[in-house]
Structure formats: C-alpha cells, structure tokens
C-alpha cells in the first residue's frame, strides 16, 4: 500500500503585508518513482495553486530547485520521496533573498558573485576564428571541465557556517570558480589578481573547513580540495606581497 506523505511547507509572501511566515501541512498519496518535483506540482495543482517554487530542467542540471529537504540542502527535482520519511519538511534555501514560499533569488546572488570575482576567461587578445584553434592538452581540457561543472545551485552556501556569519562570504562556489579559471591557461590573470578578489576573510581565508559544502554539493565537486589548494596558493601570494 502506498504511503500517505505529510508535507510541511514553508509559506510566506514578503510583498504581501498580511503574510506571516508559517509552515503549512499538505497530505499526498505517494506513487512509485515520485520525486519532489512531481509531489510539489501535485500539491500546487490540487491543494495550493499559489504555492511558489522553482524548477526548470527537472533533471538535476540547471540548479534552480535547491531547497532544504528535512533540514538538508539538496536538489528537489531529483530527490525521490521514497528516500525520505513520511513527514517531509521543505524550507527555502537560507542565505538568499526570499521571493516567496520555496523560491529564492539565487540568480541575483550568483550574478553579483560573477561581477565581483570576474568569473570569465580574461583574454590577452581576441582569437582569429578563421584559423586552427590553439591546441590544448586533452587531460588539461578534462581537468578544466571537471572544475567547470558547478551549477550555481547554492547548496554549498546553504550548508556553510561561514556564510551564516559573514554576509559577503564568497562561499565554496566562489572559491571553486577561482580554481577553475586559475587552472585555465587561456585566462591571463596571475595569483596577484586572484588575491585581489578573494585574498581576505570574505574570500578563501574566511573558510572554517567545516566541510558542509563538500557534503551537500549535488555535483560531488571536490570543493574542500580546491579550497585548500587555493588557500595555499594565495597564502603564498600574500606572503610575497608583504
């Protein structure tokens, strides 16, 4: 017999002066292969037409649907209800601006991060695209791709102790991005340039190594290794500076 799931979902509409943050309860019969994407859409269709949440790809690649699932950050679209107990509590991701209910503005935060850390390949010159491309070692290309796989979902920030204390902390996502561009020989920046953007306590020296980011990254990125690596490189850079 199918279980009856009991969802406790955070509801709040910050733009509505009458709205009070609260948990509301919805009951739903579980079906085989049910994901939180399916469950939330059913709740919206049948019980709460104004319930806000964000899904786009519903395949675990776009990073839209991160939320706190029974207290742990994760991608709702690929979470099977079968992996959860009968009572499922869903809260919006902390550390981001709340839009309404389970919807938070990760996009705005990530754009600001990108502007602040200049997360793009800094070119020496524009390429001549009529000519053969510059060669790159096949292993290096794979290493860069490995570092390029972050989907900016925000789970690392939600799981981060430092981010709770420092509102401007760049998080694992930021430090990992620096690792990505630092590994890429097409980017002409040097460690002095990277030190400028994350060489302080809101950057790589703010990390307390609690490892929450590593535990909850849906792409299993080696966040701690990269943070340790960048911290060592930039500590050396800081030492040189003084």
């Amino acid at each position, binding site marked *: 017999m199918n279980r009856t799931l009991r969802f406790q979902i955070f509801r709040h*509409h910050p*733009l*509505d002066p009458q709205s009070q943050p609260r948990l509301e309860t919805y009951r739903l019969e579980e079906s085989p*292969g049910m*994901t939180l994407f399916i469950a939330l859409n059913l709740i*919206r*269709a049948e019980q709460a*037409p*104004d*319930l*806000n949440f964000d*899904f*786009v*790809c*519903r*395949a*675990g*690649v*776009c*990073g*839209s649907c991160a939320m706190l699932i029974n207290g742990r950050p994760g991608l709702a679209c*690929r979470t*099977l209800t079968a992996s959860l107990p009968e009572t499922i509590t869903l809260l919006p991701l902390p550390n981001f601006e709340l*839009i*309404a*209910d389970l*919807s938070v*503005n*990760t*996009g*705005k935060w*990530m*754009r600001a991060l*990108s*502007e602040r850390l200049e*997360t*793009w*390949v800094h070119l020496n010159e524009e*390429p001549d*695209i*009529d*000519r*053969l*491309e*510059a*060669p*790159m*070692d*096949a292993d290096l*290309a*794979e290493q*860069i*791709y490995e570092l*390029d*796989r972050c*989907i*900016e979902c925000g789970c690392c920030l939600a799981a981060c102790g430092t981010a709770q204390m420092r509102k401007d902390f760049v998080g694992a996502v930021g430090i990992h991005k620096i690792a990505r561009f630092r590994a*890429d020989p*097409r*980017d002409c920046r040097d460690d002095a340039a990277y030190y400028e953007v994350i060489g302080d306590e809101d950057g790589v020296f703010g990390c307390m190594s609690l490892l929450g980011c590593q535990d909850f990254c849906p792409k299993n990125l080696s966040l701690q290794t990269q943070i340790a690596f960048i911290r060592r490189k930039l500590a050396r850079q800081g030492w040189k500076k003084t």
Partner: protein
Amino acid sequence: MKLLYTDVLIIGGGLAGLRTAIGVKRRGLDPLILSLVPPKRSHSVAAQGGMQASLGNCAKSEGDNEDIHFADTVRGSDWGCDQLVARMFTHMAPKAVRELAAWGVPWSRVRAGVHEAVIHGERVRIQALEGAQGLITARDFGGTKKWRTCYTADGTGHAMLYTLGDRAVAESIPVHDRREALALIHEGERCQGAIVRNLMTGELSAYLARATVIATGGYGHLYAVSTNAIINEGLGQAIALETGVAQLGNLEAVQFHPTAIVPAGILVTEGCRGDGGVLRDVDGYRFMPDYEPEKAELASRDVVSRRMVEHMRKGKGVKGRFGEHLWLDITVLGRAHIEKHLREVKEICQYFLGIDPAVDYIPVRPTQHYSMGGIRTDYRGESPTLRGLFACGEAACWDLHGFNRLGGNSVAETVVSGMLVSEYVADFCTSPEGDIQLSSALAREFLQREQAKLSRLLAATGEENPVALRQQMEHIMMERVGLFRNGAELQTAVDELRILLQRAENLGLRSRQPAANPELVLAYRLPKMLKIALGVALGALARTESRGAHFREDYPERNDRDWLKRTLYRWPESGEPQLDYEPLDVKQMELPPGFRGYGTKNIVEHPDTKARQAEVAQAQQRAPDRFALQEQLMPFRHLLPERYRKPNERLHEPLP
C-alpha cells in the same frame, strides 16, 4: 507607468540570446536581456551531446568540410530547409566553435596515438591524425557522414552556456531575469519593444527598443511529456503570433527524440548511440540493423523514433508500469568511458531510475524533443512582415532544420544564429530603418491592455480550472499530434483545441495574489499555449504528405510536387487563424531534392527536380574546385557580414 529604453531588447537568456547580446554590444549598441529565469538556468544547459562543426580534426572526421555538413543538414531536413541558411550556418559553425574555445569552453581534445572506440557494437582501434594532437575532437551523431560533433563530455550545453553567460557579465550586459514579455508593442508593421511583467512583484513595465529579438526556445511543453525544460511553452512564438502581423513557420515540424527515459521524459544524449550504444527490444535483440542496415541506431532521429514505435507495435516492446518502452544498452562502452564521457547520463540513471548504466539497460522511448518550427524570419533573422522583430535559435524558423533537425545542429545553431543575427540587428539599428518615434502613448495603450487582462483574471470566478485545461491540451497533443499522425485524429485535435480555447475564456482562479502567483501565470499563458498548439495541429492536418518528423499514416509519401513549401501561420487581430504557404524554389537549390536513403523510396517528385539535378551534375564536371562549384550553384558569401566571409582553416586545408 515604468518605461525603459534600450537599443536592442533580447527576450530569452539562453545561448542564442546571450550570443546575440554580445554581438550587438560589440557593435556599440546597448542590448538588454529579459529572461524568465537566470540565464544559466536556461534550457540550453541541458544540451548534452555536442555541437556540429566540420573541423575535421579526428580520424573519423578526416576530410570533413562545410559541403559535407551542408549536405547532411539538407538531407536531414528532408529537403524542407532553406539551403542558403544551411550554407551560411555550416560556414559559420567552425568559427563559432573556435570562438567558444578561446572564450573558455573546455572542448574535449584529440589524443595522439591509437585509442579504442565502439562502432556497431564492436571495439575498434583508431589511429589519431598526424598533427591533430590537442585540437578539438568530435564524436559520431545520427544522420552524419563524418564524426563532427564537438563536445565536452556530456555537459556541452552547460560548458557553452556558462562561458557565454560569464562573457555577457564580462561585457556588462544587463539581464533582467524573472521577467516575462507578455506582449510585443507594435505600431502597424513596426515592432517597438514589449510589455514586461516582473514575475516576483507582478509589476508591469514597457520596454521600448529599436529592435526586438525573440530567443525563447521551443514549444515542447505543449506535450505532456517532453525532454524540454518546463519553461519551453512556446511563449515567444505566441507573443509574435498575437501581434496579428508576424507569421510562424512550419509549426507542425516537431521532433521526437529516440531516447528519453521512462517515465520522467528526461533526455539521455544521442552521444550514447554515437559512442557505440545500441537499442534492444524485449528479447534483448538489437533490432535497428533489420530496419536500417547501413546507419542502424544512427539513422536520422525521426527515422529511429518511428522504427522504435513500429517495433513496439509488433509486440516487441517491454511492458512496464508506465507503458511500453525499449532498452538503450551502453554497457558495451565500459564503465571507464561512461564515467568520463557520459557522466550526466550516469547521474540521470542513478537518480531517476535507480540503475547503473554500466551494468543495466536504460528504459527509453521516443519523446517530444525539438521544435523545428517557430517565428518565420528571413536569413537575417528578421520577420518579413513585422519590421524590427527578429528571432533566433529554436524560437525561430529561419529555416535551418526543415522537417527534421540533426543532433548537434541545435546548439550549433544557437551560437551561429546569435553571431549572425546580432550583426544584422546592428546594421538595422544603425540604418534609418532602425529609428523609432518613441511614443509613451503607444506604450501606455499596450500596457493598459495587458493590465486589464490581468485584472480581469485576478477577479475571475468562471468555472474552468486552468490546470485541468492545460492537462487536456497536453493530452490532445500527445495522443493526436504525435509521432504518427492521420487526418481523423488531427481533425479531432483541431476541434478539441478550439473548444479548449473557448473554455479558457471562462477561467476561475482561487488565488487573488497579484505578485508571485503561479496560478495567475498559468491562467494568462494558457490561451497563448493553446494558440500555438492549434497552429501545430492545423499545419499537420493540412500537410497531406510525410516529410521528416511529420509523418502521416494516410499520406506516407513525401510529396515534393505539392508540398515542397513552408507553412505560414498567422492570426489576424480580429478573425480566424490562417495558413499560407511559401514555396521552396528547386531551381535555386544547391542540392536538389533526392532520396534520404532510409526505408524504401516513396517520393512524388517536383517537376523542376530533374532539370536542376542535370544542371548540378553538369556544373560538377566543369568546376575546378569545391569552392568554385559552390559559388556557381548557390552564391551565399555576399550575404554574410563582412567579418565572417573568410574560409575556415583545417589541417588538410591550411590558409596562407
């Protein structure tokens, strides 16, 4: 009323929209991107397998060039495409890949020496080309003569989208995300921007622009199950249609991808088969070579999808809890290959099916995947009937794909069309034609009209539930406007969709919240979606032939004599929707209509085909080289922006 001005308003923040914005900005104009979601969450991110470009760097792509890519694309389209556009596209694709390579995409590269690959289920050893080490490599995809699909593992769309998304930040291009264009502002036949709703606050604003570019992707989610992101609901096409002036082309051309997982409908890439994976039936038997001995699993997508359904209809499907399916077997590729080159596939299998594709077969069936149809444009990306309105990428029908798109040609199209259309848009804006009389009165008129519609909906107490109506639409499209079509079913679909459209005027909403309110959003989108769905069904009903992905059981032949033409769908402001047709000129074709080579030949020939074939054959004998021949048959270079006219260098074709 909040009123904003920008030179170029770009609706859609995926690959096509981003590349257009970058191109426009580099021409000294101010672009602004509107997007339903943060740009890096766009559907482009889901493209897994790769991007076609005839670089010719890897052993199995030796000798590749624009001509071969062009011929594959035209054949793939079942001769439905615009060959000038296909020429411009295949010329540009290598430039696009190389530009992205410089900007940061970590394309997979050629390794020196001998390496193993799987072809037709067999392990073979391949020797890399001399001098190719470190250049961009390619994998095999369906319907192509060469290995031509450039890739980064199976996260190609992700890598491309992040590179372009970050590039747009680098070039200080403003993005207004979580905004939706509700209507285009136009005065007669001149588009002047859009009325925009902020999805977070509910506020409406008018964005005025000299040129407006729609790059909002396809209309897959008119169907109950689609591989598309859930935001691909045909809204860009709908606002163009609702002007009453712009036309939509070939809406009935809808592609079904052979391998989406069951039941979630999530895509697993064609790269699975390109890398050597095979399809199996209920008995574990590999059936595709029986139907298509030469290309087997790597026939064109439309062909493979139909063969799969044909095979299931013979009772060879696997009966599961969620209906019938077949198996995709990539176990033959080995764990190492899967974990390096097909890792997204592995994650999808793990999370959504609970299986390990290195050991288990993957349950798949054909599923709606791509919209070849869209906003009709000329080769410059501009609507021929509504000036100042441009479209590119999947949202457009400019028309690269005709009636069937090759795998790997869509992400290539997004960036190539962005590169080209941005130049034409900039030319337009800097010409006298690009001037507009900024009229706040006009903007107010449109804004008040949209505001009135929303207010009516927020007070609506009708009997119809928008969720239920949407489900009925999705069901009609699945059951009656799918992979196999016939007149009776299509007529029923048209009738039922018309009834739904009427019922959608009598909605009742339960929530009165003007700001972030998904029920309101669905309510105002529903008539838009229904109008596009009706266009698909009407076009399919009228087209009494089978071409590419459009297959009519009652008209199985491809009929060039009567149907070598593009469907144009328009909905005049007061009145009924109309279908018109635009003929394709056989006399101008570089590659005259022929047989694609799948199944048995079943074509009603066009009266001009023979004469054109003879002309082409004669030219082939006289021409000194491939460039001269091409130039003689169908000159296209003069249409390109000047900066993109030079030939492409290859290992076997060095530039001076």
